[in-house]
């Protein structure tokens, strides 16, 4: 009997913890959206964050997208050669990169690189009372800390996604043209011809939502960190794990939505 009661208690605690967490994320999203149009507009801070989030992520995004495009081309060549359909590799790489791999891989990279750093930075500020200090200096921490990061991510993640799409397709081109012997003209035709605006936009819409997920989760985890350096470490890990799960879950939801609604 005691074991059953303990189990119910633990389940109840987990459930209320989950509700508190999702409620916290929702409240932070609402407060961030509320503060975006309020002056002052911190252009310098937004540009600084855009540089940290976007420009500094270019090397890792380039590397992973290029190799993903190459692997995708090689793996599909393995299957398609059986049906003598190698020329469709270009289309497959283009579709996969634009609709799925570009947005998801870029979001995962940014969540791991940028989301973790946002949580660590804000978490350190929280445990060293810097966020309290901001409030005593009559400055709203959400306006000062979250809004610039939110706007920077909303601008840079779709741009990085677009860049990843192109680099991934370039990876496919290298394998298709130089390894599988598809002609340049044929590869380019099969890349661009079947690709529609819709394919590009569905990927970009996903990346906007991923940007919201990464920023809100990272900032929430940072601003609620407690327990010194250990607590900051825990929050940083949690930020990356939660972001990854939410990105994959929302990707599944959007893919289904676009498949059934925007056919």
């Amino acid at each position: 009997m005691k074991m059953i009661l303990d189990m119910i208690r633990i389940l109840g605690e987990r459930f209320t913890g989950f509700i508190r967490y999702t409620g916290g994320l929702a409240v932070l999203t609402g407060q961030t959206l509320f503060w975006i149009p309020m002056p002052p507009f911190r252009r310098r801070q937004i540009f600084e964050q855009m540089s940290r989030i976007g420009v500094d992520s270019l090397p890792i995004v380039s590397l992973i997208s290029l190799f993903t495009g190459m692997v995708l081309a090689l793996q599909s060549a393995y299957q398609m050669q059986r049906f003598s359909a190698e020329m469709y590799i270009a289309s497959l790489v283009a579709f996969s990169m634009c609709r799925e791999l570009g947005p998801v891989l870029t979001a995962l990279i940014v969540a791991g690189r940028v989301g973790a750093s946002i949580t660590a930075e804000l978490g350190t500020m929280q445990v060293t009372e810097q966020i309290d200090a901001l409030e005593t200096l009559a400055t709203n921490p959400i306006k000062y800390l979250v809004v610039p990061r939110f706007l920077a991510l909303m601008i840079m993640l779709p741009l990085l996604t677009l860049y990843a799409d192109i680099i991934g397709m370039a990876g496919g081109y290298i394998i298709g043209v130089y390894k599988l012997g598809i002609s340049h003209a044929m590869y380019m035709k099969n890349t661009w011809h079947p690709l529609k605006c819709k394919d590009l936009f569905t990927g970009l819409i996903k990346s906007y939502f991923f940007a919201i997920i990464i920023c809100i989760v990272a900032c929430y985890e940072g601003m609620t960190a407690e327990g010194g350096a250990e607590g900051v470490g825990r929050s940083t890990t949690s930020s990356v794990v939660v972001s990854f799960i939410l990105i994959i879950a929302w990707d599944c939801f959007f893919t289904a939505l676009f498949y059934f609604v925007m056919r």
Partner: protein
Amino acid sequence: MIEIINLCKSFNGHAVLDNLNLNINTGETTVIIGRSGCGKSVLLKHIIGILRPDSGQVIVDGKDVTKMEEKELNALRLRFGMLFQGAALFDSLNVRGNVAFNMIEHMNSKPSEIDKAVKESLALVGLKGIEDKKPAELSGGMRKRVGLARAICIRPHIMLYDEPTTGVDPIMGDAVNDLIMELHNKLKITSIAVTHDMTSAYKIADRIAMLYNGKIIANGTPDEIKNTKDPIVRQFVTGAGKGPITEGIDFEHLV
């Protein structure tokens, strides 16, 4: 005048402030003493409106801080200065950016005015020529002084000090005490300091109040507190290991 009336605050079911009442007179330095973790910093955060109480009021110059909207609260906060225990300097800004934070954020001050105010504030705390340094390049004592310079940069009417001498060596601690007294004399401000350092409390206080079990159990001049008959206050101010505060706590295992 600051009036704290029946202030209650609990964290996870544990009452930290329990119907606390305290009056702080304008122009005086009030020191709140008490054991570590007894809620002294929580009380300060209620006075400046960072924390909202479960019930009770904090009246500053006739207005209830606990009922204020963010805009009104921010206007009030510009009349406060607060020195945090660890200084809480912003790591991303240099000393100039930290000290002039309020001027940059809330006043349309010209760069020349900002430079002048930063130099003056740093001079008041005995520092110069460190405007371009980052907080990470400063020693603990210097960080505390820069924190103080930031708090006084726009000449507040009320100063809050959270453990001003904790984390610095005794000589620097005494220098910080002198600074607090000097600022109090020069700027004629109301000051509230929380500390468990009795040397500091006796030196800077006009009045000392003791917080124990969520309530103010003693309030008087430094001499009154020093000569109190209350066994709890007596044990705390003398730093005795045995007495009513530590009743039932066994320190034998520490020996």
